[in-house]
């Protein structure tokens, strides 16, 4: 049983560019959340998707957007990249109504 998977593992982008990160949830999970983790900090909640809709959103600008597909996989898009967007981006999945969530290995984004 595969856990949460994310792609790519690492990514280097230039300021102003756009990036798309991908996530496949753990089998049986239908709710996906995205987090940003800066070095030395805890993960910060970006948004959560359930039934292909954004259900909750953290304190992130509109440059951060997402999508969930019918198979529950999800994408995180970031437009107009800033140097400060450099971080580890984590995807977490859970069953609807469950409290425990499971994280993927993350995508390390570097913006130069």
């Amino acid at each position, binding site marked *: 049983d595969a856990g949460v998977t994310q792609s790519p593992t690492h990514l280097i982008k230039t300021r102003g560019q756009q990036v798309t990160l991908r996530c496949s949830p753990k089998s049986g999970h239908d709710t996906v959340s995205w987090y940003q983790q800066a070095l030395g900090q*805890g*993960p910060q909640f970006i948004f959560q998707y359930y039934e292909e809709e954004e259900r909750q959103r953290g304190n992130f600008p509109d440059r951060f957007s997402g999508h969930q597909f019918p198979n529950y996989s999800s994408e995180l898009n970031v437009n107009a990249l800033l140097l400060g967007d450099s971080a580890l981006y984590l995807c977490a999945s859970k069953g609807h109504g469950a409290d425990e969530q499971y994280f993927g290995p993350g995508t390390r984004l570097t913006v130069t």
Partner: protein
Amino acid sequence: SQKIEQNSEALNIQEGKTATLTCNYTNYSPAYLQWYRQDPGRGPVFLLLIRENEKEKRKERLKVTFDTTLKQSLFHITASQPADSATYLCALPFSGNTPLVFGKGTRLSVIA
């Protein structure tokens, strides 16, 4: 404002001893609290969830307590091993079904 504090950034202990990590929160009324382990460059791994009506929970060498009066959770690792060296994160929802908020984590080093 709402805050989560983990008692120290780093904790060094000798192999075989019990490690105790602290998570304090203010201005929250969480229904539960979670603990995660994170290795460098990897996603957090779920360890334990304790609900507000539970005083203590155990899993193998791990024990978590939750004192809603003190607004504090203690995380214990007994008979610690060098393989337990990692960053440990506590996380809880503001209230109800809101997204998890994470502390900055405590980096535990178990010295042989």
